């Protein structure tokens, strides 16, 4: 549905245009103007010279990044953890919201919901501390594993590379499921109760209602959040990997952000950090455009 731009439409949409224009100016100033900083990636930026007087070096920083084997490994780690986290947190939040919706006891529902989002307020240092405790050689997880005879000897979870990504994903799920579910809970409120009645009359059971009413009802929200998060897979995090990682697993634990801190910021090399940032932005936007196109093809809600 294309609207023709003529004087009449402009007049009609005056209000929208005015507000939209004001908001766009705001966006240009606060979000697009600082992008001048991207120049740094093509410079040998020195704070003393500033953006205007630093020496231009072209694509050197990008070449350095992509010729470094470590950086490629770091991209792999970031993508790996990003995708696992995305899937795990996403599925869990939706599952939790839907199941919570099915709890009949109103008081119980409120209590569960209130408790579920609390871990969101704990800092990573606290959460990782507890996780380290629980997964240590004498921690509760190993004790359970030994009690039920899965293993004879405690597993040193943090010494083996294969456990690291799942642990990170679990930590994310643990901390954020309740919080992320809030959006879905709000979306569920918009579903017309008549639909449930209709489904009930049609003989749908609990699963049937979830499948045919609740899920379709929150589908637009799911799609939009999925699209937005697809663009975030390269932001797999920094703190959690930093706090949980150690020398033995560093080949799988280092993310782009950690790399930038190590080789950029803590070396006063702002340019390399900016270059990595640009790389992340470009990848994110490409992913978003592709995902958005897919959504458009299949007639779903989309970002733009």
């Amino acid at each position, binding site marked *: 549905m294309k609207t023709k731009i003529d004087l009449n439409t402009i007049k009609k949409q005056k209000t929208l245009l005015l507000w939209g224009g004001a908001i766009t100016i705001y966006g240009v100033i606060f979000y697009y103007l600082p992008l001048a900083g991207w120049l740094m990636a093509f410079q040998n930026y*020195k*704070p*003393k010279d*500033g953006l205007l007087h630093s020496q231009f070096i072209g694509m050197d920083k990008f070449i350095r990044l992509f010729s470094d084997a*470590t950086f490629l490994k770091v991209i792999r780690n970031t993508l790996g953890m990003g995708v696992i986290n995305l899937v795990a947190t996403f599925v869990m939040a939706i599952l939790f919201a839907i199941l919570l919706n099915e709890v009949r006891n109103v008081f119980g529902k409120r209590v569960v919901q209130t408790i579920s989002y609390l871990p969101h307020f704990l800092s990573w240092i606290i959460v*990782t*501390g507890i996780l*380290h*405790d629980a997964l*240590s*050689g004498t921690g509760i997880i190993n004790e359970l594993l030994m009690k039920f005879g899965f293993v004879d000897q405690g597993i*040193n*979870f*943090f*010494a083996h590379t294969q456990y690291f990504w799942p642990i990170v994903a679990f930590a994310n799920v643990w901390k954020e499921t309740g919080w992320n579910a809030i959006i879905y809970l709000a979306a569920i409120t918009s579903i017309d109760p008549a639909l449930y009645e209709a489904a009930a009359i049609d003989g749908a059971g609990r699963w049937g209602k979830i499948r045919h009413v609740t899920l379709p009802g929150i589908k637009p929200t799911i799609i939009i959040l999925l699209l937005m998060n697809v663009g975030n897979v390269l932001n797999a995090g920094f703190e959690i990997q930093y*706090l949980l990682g*150690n*020398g*033995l697993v*560093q*080949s799988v634990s280092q993310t782009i952000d950690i790399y930038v*801190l*190590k*080789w950029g*910021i*803590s*070396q*006063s*090399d*702002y340019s390399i950090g900016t270059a990595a940032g640009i790389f992340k932005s470009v990848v994110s936007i490409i992913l978003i455009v592709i995902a958005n196109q897919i959504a458009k093809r299949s007639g779903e809600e989309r970002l733009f």
Partner: protein
Amino acid sequence: MKKKALSLLLSMVVVASTVACGSSSGTDSTEGTETSEGEVAGASKEADADSSEVKEFTAFFAVPGSEINDDNEIQQMIAEKTGVKVKETWLTGQTAEEAVGTLIAGGEYPDFIDGGDGMMQLYEAGALVPLDDYLDSYPNIKAYYTEQEWDKLRQDDGHIYWMNQFQNIKGEDTTCTHNDEAFWIQTRVLEWAGYPEVKTMDQYFDLIESYNEANPTMEDGTENIPYTILCDDWRYFCLENAPEFLDGYPNDGSVIVDPEELKVIDYNTTDTAVAYFKKLNEEYQKGIVDPESFTQTYDEYIAKLSTGRVLGMIDQWWDFAFTAGDAIKSAGLDEQGCMYVPLPITISEDVQNQWHNSGGVLNVASGLAVTTSCEDVEGALQFIDDLLGQEVHNLRFWGVEGVDYEVDDDGIFYRTEEERTNAADTAYKASHICTYSYFPQWLGTSDDGINANMPSDQPNEYYDSLADTVKECLSAYGAQTYVDMLGTNEAPGPWYPMYSYSNNLTTSTDAGVAWNLMGEVKHEYLPKVVMAEDFDSAWAEYMEAYNACNPQDFIDAMQVELERRVEEAAKFAE
């Protein structure tokens, strides 16, 4: 509904505009900031009234530190004596480089600054005031370093911009604590063995092994952890740098310097390094080395130490003494002999240890500087000068006589148990004590010739604070202090310490890249080497990865710096 929303909005706008006014007046002048806010105004106006003469300076230290309260008592006293009060802020949630980078971009600096790891950036940005011309007018500052030491602080443009604040000894060196790295061992192990001489790495591990065999648990039945290794992030020095000490060299931090040949040696590849890691590997296979060594976090490590289960480890004193050490004491575990003492361990008996060095260390890499934003450079320097005066210095570190310390008939300072507890209390420190801890300070003895500049260096004060089991252990070795346990050595040469150079290497040079890569490889491979079932092949694998980092680039750069330093010193000697 609409009315409600509207009134809410209105009230917000009103409140907000008051804040806005407050803040805009606050930006005009630095002194104005205190009085602009409604609630604080009442309190600080009074303070302003009776100290209207007090000049306010600002300071930023790009290191973590604790802020003191605005109404801090000793800060007030120092202000009365010197006419100056400094508002200090510290690094929060950023790296030093980041914090300094934003300051430079903004072009506005506090009056005083210590850029930490970002010091060179500040210098390059022209943010610092050259101090050379001023030095002669401030006798206390001038006397803070010898001519030769001031010379070491000169940058490549020939000027002096900062003075390091620490490790500077006046009078006699009375250091009691070995505030550095060592092989530590619990006194109960030594007591059980009848306080034997323990001088080599093999003897050390033999002792721990035999003690653990005889006493596998603590008194309450908790299993001992014979030996643990802290490996968390930058704290992995507890694993990696022992080879330089074992060979009888001091803590140059990144390399060994052969003092005869004046040659830089890489301690990562020496025979001693192989022997040390092979030993750790053997002990790991025997179950003596804690299997969680390489995955534990710093908090977990401190928790282990605090329970008194760990018989021995390598660490720096400051890294565990104020946390685990205090916990051991407060749980009464020191009575069971769970406190640690250092041992003079080397690779073989004929090697003289240099774990402890006397005479202070001048780290030229960073220090306190005055910035170009400071409008009163003379006043700022006068304040530093005043802080170094004995009376103010005592106020900073000892506190107020009769409140924070007592003086006995011979004029010796001491503290009561209560005063000692207060001195360690966070809240008390914030409201009462003001050490201006990142301003220059003296170690050693005070001008009165009998007292130490720092309470921790006062022998009687130090001895009184020791647990009985530790006193007993020390006296069994004929020692009074931890330093006596190790013996002391003069600083090895004018180049010392080399880490002041390697710490400032950046990845814009090949040497810096190599140095960074070496760190990464060691972090990953050293634990693997210790845990390996086949040491030799693991070591070979490690060496292959290590050599791929081009360590020679780094060693060469260190050699050049070493020669530069020696040359500089020689120039001065003529």
